[in-house]
């Protein structure tokens, strides 16, 4: 178990990066608390797997340092860092039995056989692979194989951190819940530092204490699920988290009013904006209300998704989504109102604070 510090990490896969665009991972500078459960969330190709492999030591970063509990491990091998990692697709040693597969990482580290047996049995119990222990791993289904991969990551109790690289991609939805809650339980029980890479927001939000949102090779926001929902630091976080994502509307800011087309929206704070910046207003569909009061809107489509309705509409000739409860009525001449507390203002895609 360890506190992990990433100091000015940058990584490029090419030999000589010339511009920012050559970096798969732009500057990352951050501390991961000992025993924290972090989810790295972002679209494909945003650099999250690169960052994970840098932490585990499979990749050496082009620039920067990594510290485990204050000790520089940048040039340490994976083994010296004592990291466990679970990959996207199951990796099993198919000539070995399930039992030997799970015992493999321990035996390689010369753990006494009695201890190996105790720990492997614990994992077999946990993953429900009891009946398979003595069989070769070859004939197993994809999710059983992935359970073995997970098990090999969890079997070592002394690791600095456990890294998961989208481990549940190949697992059936139903089994996903079971495994995810097992991982979570283990985390509570043993307090491993866990880093979990995923592009599935539900997975990230349920798994992690802190979600790290990555976009285009950099970390755009680190926060609790609530923070990501209420105060997205970057418009990307707004889009990416939530279903549907945040409404982002280009606005003109004058003092504490935001103008969209002919409509003026009063803000409850004075945003601090540099002149010349591209300004946008962000509001979650959950905080837009539809009624007889407010600004005119033209409804284009209503999607019924069970407990809730998603209304797609055009407001000041811009597309906007509104989330309503299933019982809410849609008036004949609908008008929208924005909850002032839930409005975020963005300048050049980054959220702006209040004028001091």
């Amino acid at each position, binding site marked *: 178990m360890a506190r992990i510090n990433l100091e000015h990490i940058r990584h490029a896969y090419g030999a000589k990066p010339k511009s920012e665009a050559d970096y798969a991972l732009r500057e990352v500078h951050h501390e991961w608390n000992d025993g924290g459960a972090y989810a790295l969330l972002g679209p494909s190709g945003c650099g999250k797997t690169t960052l994970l492999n840098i932490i585990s030591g499979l990749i050496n970063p082009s620039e920067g340092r990594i510290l485990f509990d204050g000790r520089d491990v940048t040039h340490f091998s994976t083994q010296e860092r004592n990291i466990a990692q679970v990959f996207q697709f199951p*990796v099993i040693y198919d000539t070995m039995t399930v039992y030997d597969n799970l015992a493999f*990482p321990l035996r*390689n*580290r010369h753990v006494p056989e009695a201890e190996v047996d105790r720990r492997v049995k614990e994992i077999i119990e946990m993953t429900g692979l009891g009946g398979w222990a003595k069989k070769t791993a070859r004939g197993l289904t994809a999710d059983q194989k992935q359970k073995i991969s997970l098990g090999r990551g969890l079997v070592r109790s002394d690791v600095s951190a456990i890294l998961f690289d989208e481990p549940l991609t190949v697992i059936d939805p139903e089994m996903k819940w079971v495994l995810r809650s097992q991982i979570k339980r283990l985390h509570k029980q043993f307090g491993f530092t866990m880093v979990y890479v995923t592009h599935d927001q539900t997975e990230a939000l349920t798994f992690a204490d802190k979600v790290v949102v990555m976009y285009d090779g950099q970390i755009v926001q680190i926060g609790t699920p609530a923070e990501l929902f209420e105060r997205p630091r970057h418009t990307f976080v707004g889009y990416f988290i939530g279903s549907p994502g945040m409404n982002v509307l280009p606005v003109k800011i004058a003092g504490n009013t935001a103008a969209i087309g002919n409509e003026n929206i009063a803000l409850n704070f004075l945003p601090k904006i540099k002149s010349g910046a591209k300004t946008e207003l962000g509001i979650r569909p959950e905080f837009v209300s539809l009624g007889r009061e407010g600004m005119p809107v033209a409804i284009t489509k209503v999607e019924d998704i069970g407990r809730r309705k998603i209304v797609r509409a055009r407001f000041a000739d811009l597309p906007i989504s509104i989330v309503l409860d299933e019982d809410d009525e849609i008036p004949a001449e609908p008008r929208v109102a924005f909850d002032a507390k839930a409005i975020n203002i963005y300048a050049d895609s980054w959220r702006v604070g209040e004028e001091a």
Partner: protein
Amino acid sequence: MEKTWNNKAWFMVLPVLVLVAFSAVIPLMTVVNYSVQDTFGNNEFFWAGTDWFLDVLESDRFWDALTRNLIFSAIILAIEIPLGIVIALNMPKKGIGVPICLVLMALPLLIPWNVVGTIWQVFGRVDIGLLGRTLASLGVNYNYVQNPLDAWVTLIIMDVWHWTSLVVLLCYAGLVSIPDAYYQAAKIDGASRWSVFRYIQLPKMKRVLLIAFLLRFMDSFMIYTEPFVVTGGGPGNSTTFLSIDLVKMAIGQFDLGPAAALSIIYFLIILLLSWIFYTVMTTSDAQG
């Protein structure tokens, strides 16, 4: 509904039947025909039954040649399979080195058998060959024309030079099909170099190794051209393999009956041994 019999469909397979008949069945049956009859020319044949087979099986000549064949194949497999694996493991996996290595590896495979034989025949000659003269000037008493051991060493080195590439290429194909994640997982699990080979690379190469093993066994067991060109079966009979003996018998001595019987026995031995190897190796595969 009344079922109508329509045999016209059989005409569709006729071309294939004709092709197979001319390419395989008829030549084979000719051999069978010769093996059970005796002839003194003039197209007169006499029934000989199993006489030729018994003759062959009772002759020392056959058993000596068969022993040489078995020893030769065993040595070839014992050298080429491990050597091929080692080379394949050390070939680059990416970069400019890959095409260079692949071309270098494929070169010996592109050379016709008798050319390979000629190359080594000249290369090893004591009077003009580079190898032969170099060894002689170093004081090594090497002469494949006179010394049976030297003849064997020359043939084995030649075959290793010619065919190890095949094993290398097959193993390499098996190796590059292993996803990177396996090596990464092995690193995470703290596996040693040997464990990586034993539990990841070897299992993944198993199928191609089976093919490499069978191909190299069959080819080395049927070897003819190269020893014929290099040693001509000598010195004495020391490198007279079944195939060479067969040709001597059939063309040199014109003993068609015994030669036909030997051909069939030879064919059955290869078939039997290949079947045994295949069965043994695939059963152990299934048991894991």
